[in-house]
């Protein structure tokens, strides 16, 4: 068994992880878990689901590691797996219960000041966006996918992706306005989660 060190090349780490070396897998996990969790959490729109989806994404990625040839960056490859895994899990969940998340008029968000507050508002607004809109908005505006890539990932045309994105942005703006009004009307008292 080889010593795993912080300076070890990613390529070597991946080879060891593909061979089932626990510490190499752990090192990759420590390095990329926040990125994987972030995208999965935003797609899931829910903490509990996100944990399940992130687990599934990692299991898939580790399972598929022997097929990773290094054509793309590992982070990109892993990110794709996380997105696809979360989307697939979400589709399964949708099939089980055809529901759309209700959009509350006001969503209380904890005040953290300045950017932190805006980030919190954005996260909360993302959580209550209808799922179809949320997926496209996250993939495009948060994760930087092109409409062609979104089309491939979601199985829609790039035109549909654009149309959904513009609707999602408009919906987001409405939601953010509601959140902002709520904060001004109710002050800090209303922001406890």
């Amino acid at each position: 068994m080889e010593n795993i060190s912080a300076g070890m090349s990613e390529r070597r780490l991946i080879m060891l992880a593909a061979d089932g070396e626990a510490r190499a897998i752990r090192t990759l996990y420590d390095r990329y878990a926040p990125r994987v969790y972030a995208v999965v959490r935003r797609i899931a729109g829910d903490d509990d689901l996100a944990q399940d989806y992130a687990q599934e994404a990692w299991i898939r990625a580790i399972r598929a590691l022997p097929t990773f040839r290094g054509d793309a960056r590992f982070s990109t490859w892993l990110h794709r797996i996380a997105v696809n895994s979360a989307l697939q899990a979400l589709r399964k969940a949708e099939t089980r219960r055809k529901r759309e998340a209700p959009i509350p008029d006001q969503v209380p968000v904890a005040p953290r000041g300045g950017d932190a507050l805006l980030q919190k508002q954005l996260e909360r607004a993302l959580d209550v966006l209808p799922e179809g809109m949320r997926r496209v908005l996250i993939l495009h505006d948060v994760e930087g996918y092109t409409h062609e890539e979104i089309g491939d990932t979601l199985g829609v045309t790039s035109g549909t992706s654009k149309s959904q994105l513009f609707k999602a942005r408009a919906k987001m703006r409405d939601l953010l306005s509601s959140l902002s009004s709520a904060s001004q009307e109710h002050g800090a008292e209303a922001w406890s989660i």
Partner: protein
Amino acid sequence: MEHLTAETLAGLVDEVAQPEEAAHLAECQVCRAKLDDYREQTEALGNLPEIVPPRGDWGVLEARLRSEGLVKTPGAFERLGLAQTPAWMKVAAAVMLYLGGTGTGVVLAHNDKPQALGEMAMMSDPTMFANSATVDDAASAVRIAEQYYVSALARYRELMLTESGGQPGVDQMSKYAALEHLAAASQAALRQAPGDPYFNGLLASVLGEREATARMVSRKDNWF
């Protein structure tokens, strides 16, 4: 004057405005302000930070990876920190540990007798293996049971050879090397089918035989 729709403005964040849209924006402060809002919103979304997963996620993931055979179970030498040691030294180390009286099972996972004695107490109540409340407890029970099985197997083989007074008929070093390969193959098979009892049993048997062979090597040649 009719304002641009929300969706049109949302699209103009990264699309080129049509001449009539550009003309409207040049004259309409309301739509310009809204477009600025959309741009800020899009930029803020692109700058959202990563999210740290909840604590304990790795533990759950590791348990699952192990249950699916995606993580290699470290062998006795890795557990003892001898992973970098050449193969012949590993054999020597194994033999020395045996001669030191710690026993196969203890060598495989632990090197302290008090803990081994505690596990012996566990052995006296086999239901403890079947009543694990958590994945960790169950994994621990499996490891302990495996250690005792391997230990018992090694002792059984040793007694058989003693009683028969026979000498092994094959070159023990070659056999040891073959068993190393077999252990690796069994582990690879387990990664494909982690829950398969045959592969699990095979691996345990191979490990036991491998350790027993190491002992035979030491008796025959005393080469270390």
